């Protein structure tokens, strides 16, 4: 029996922390009749229910792909147990038949032979050109280096999910703190915060992100001591990308929150709380934050699909995740020139786009259901 050593990448830890936070939110809102009714509204709509199931599928793929471990390798007796340098996930174990079944090069979906012909010496000594038989059946074919395309697409799901969610984790505290502070305190604080987000907003988004990614790349290259494996390095780059997207993407929500807080501030119950001498911190926590929470939830769900799509563009621009990380952007980037081949290799590209489309469409439909339930007025 080979031992395993659980391995926790930083992004895994953050993801589980996020799941715990969502769990806590669910547990808390179970007790509130109103929150329960609103969420029931989300799932009562047919689109909301269906898209939620699709999202559950993608999220489970992502979670199983985040339970990482390393397999023990043969170690001479008496020495400390050693582990393989390769980090695997539970998803990898489930997909072992796909992961290990690699071919020499391209093969079409469900094909029995490779795509290209080779010169083969037959039993009677003559040489014939024919396409060699493949070792395994691949439901969606194999790519240039013979990797299973379905496996690659499933592995890309985690990257998309992480970018869509971890970014929010960075963006939310900034947007909430600054947006609400600007609206509530007004005056100098408002001026300073407005200046900050106008400045950030004025820089073209992709350029700012690309510039920050360039700079972070230089830092990661210069600091080999920050990571101890290729997986950790790729993980670090992914986290850095999320942080950059979050640091540059908080302005939209902050503006919304500022405007809403400006309105709330003048309402009677907050004026009354002030007159009673309730502290600012308490007013913000008890009276303002719960009344802007619907905006936060709507924005988080709406932003998700945009972020997943942004990864593809950023990877193309050269400011995306690590080239070794499986992601839809990297898949599309690697496959986009294959349509020009003869015979045409369309399946890696088609698979990547199909998975991406399903994920983003489900996210968009779910976001619509959430928005309709939380903000009946703004449903469009």
């Amino acid at each position, binding site marked *: 029996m080979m031992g395993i050593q659980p391995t926790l990448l930083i992004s895994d830890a953050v993801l589980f922390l996020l799941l715990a936070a969502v769990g806590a939110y669910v547990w808390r809102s179970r007790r509130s009749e109103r929150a329960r009714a609103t969420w029931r509204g989300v799932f009562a709509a047919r689109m909301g229910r269906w898209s939620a199931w699709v999202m559950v599928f993608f999220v489970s793929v992502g979670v199983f792909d985040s339970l990482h471990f390393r397999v023990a390798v043969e170690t001479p007796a008496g020495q400390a147990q050693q582990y393989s340098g390769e980090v695997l996930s539970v998803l990898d174990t489930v997909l072992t038949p796909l992961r290990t079944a690699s071919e020499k090069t391209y093969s079409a979906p469900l094909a029995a032979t490779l795509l290209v012909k080779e010169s083969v010496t037959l039993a009677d000594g003559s040489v014939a050109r024919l396409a060699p038989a493949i070792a395994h059946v691949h439901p969606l074919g194999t790519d240039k280096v013979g990797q299973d395309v379905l496996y690659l697409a499933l592995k890309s799901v985690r990257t998309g999910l992480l970018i869509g969610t971890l970014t929010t984790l960075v963006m939310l505290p900034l947007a909430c703190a600054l947006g609400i502070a600007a609206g509530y305190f007004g005056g100098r604080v408002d001026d300073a915060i407005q200046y900050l987000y106008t400045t950030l907003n004025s820089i073209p988004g992709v350029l700012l992100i690309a510039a920050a990614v360039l*700079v972070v790349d230089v830092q990661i290259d210069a600091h080999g001591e920050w990571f101890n494996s290729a997986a950790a390095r790729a993980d670090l780059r992914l986290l850095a990308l999320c942080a950059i997207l979050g640091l540059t993407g908080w302005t939209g929500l902050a503006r919304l929150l500022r405007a809403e807080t400006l309105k709330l501030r003048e309402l009677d119950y907050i004026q009354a709380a002030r007159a009673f001498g309730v502290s600012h911190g308490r007013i913000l926590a008890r009276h303002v934050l719960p009344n802007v929470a619907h905006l936060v939830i709507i924005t988080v769900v709406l932003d998700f699909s945009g972020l997943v799509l942004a990864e593809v563009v950023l990877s193309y621009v050269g400011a995306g995740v690590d080239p070794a990380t499986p992601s839809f952007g990297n898949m599309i980037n690697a496959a986009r020139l294959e349509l020009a081949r003869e015979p045409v290799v369309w399946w890696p590209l088609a698979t990547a786009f199909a998975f991406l489309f399903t994920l983003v469409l489900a996210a968009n439909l779910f976001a619509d259901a959430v928005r309709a339930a939380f903000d009946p007025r703004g449903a469009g």
Partner: protein
Amino acid sequence: MITYLIRRLAYALPILLGVNLLTFALFFGVSSPDDMARLHLGGKRITAEAVERWKVQHGYDLPHFYNPAGEGVAKVTQTLFVQKSLKLFALDFGAADDGRDIGREIGKRMWPSLVVALPTFVLGLGAYLAIALFLVFFRNTAIDTVGVILLVALMSISGLFYVIGGQVLLAKWWQWVPISGYAPGLSGLHFLVLPVLIGMVSGIGDSTRFYRALFLEEAGHDYVRTAHAKGLSPFRVLFRHILGNAAIPILTGVVVVIPRLFLGSLILESFFGIPGLGSYTIDAIQAQDFAIVRAMVFLGSLLYILGLMLTDLSYAWVDPRVRLQ
């Protein structure tokens, strides 16, 4: 009006200065010129002399803010901040890593960008508004429902899919248009068809939905009911009342991007081989040419602020109640 413009310019200066400081902090604070030199010379085993030589060649061999070696004003001016960052205010962008003058390149490349971006913008806006009005006209019917579902599907498709799909379908299989390329003047018109079309299509989902929501909000107001009640034709209500009153929120989103059309689109230009600023930027990012990226960031902010000012002017133009002072 003049005083208003002057005041807006005064507001713009601190923002540009902020952008300037931010990029300076990114490119010279977080990463140093030494890092840049090592990156360009490649590999780990580079001699300190090689790094120094690269820095001298590209003008990075200066202190950040204060140069004790200089005399008089040069103590302050012979620094990275003034030479590399503040000079951008004078639209002096310096030289790229390959030694070419960035300002000249920008002047040359902004026209192809505009030639592609302007028709995309104008035709796209017209199409989005028309589709949105069409859907609002048929609101609460099956046409609207199907239309919205289609729009959500369209906005769930990656922009890269439209580009690659369009190139394969229209250029490779049907051979209606060349797959990529660019020629100035009328003779290059057939090169523009595909990028403009794809640029328009890739924006349909998001923009049309946005405009539809705007129009629907407008259609819910009392004055629309009154207009219907007094017997105006539905077309007149739609075009005159709803479209007219939605003009302000439409202008808010639209006018601000007009100056930025000069910057072009990264994806379109690089896929279609258009020698504009978009492909210039993407090449610079891929070659890690920090000087060009810095110049484009500054130019982008400058054009954005210009767009904000144009937006205010456009308010005064469409709405007689708005007075700029």
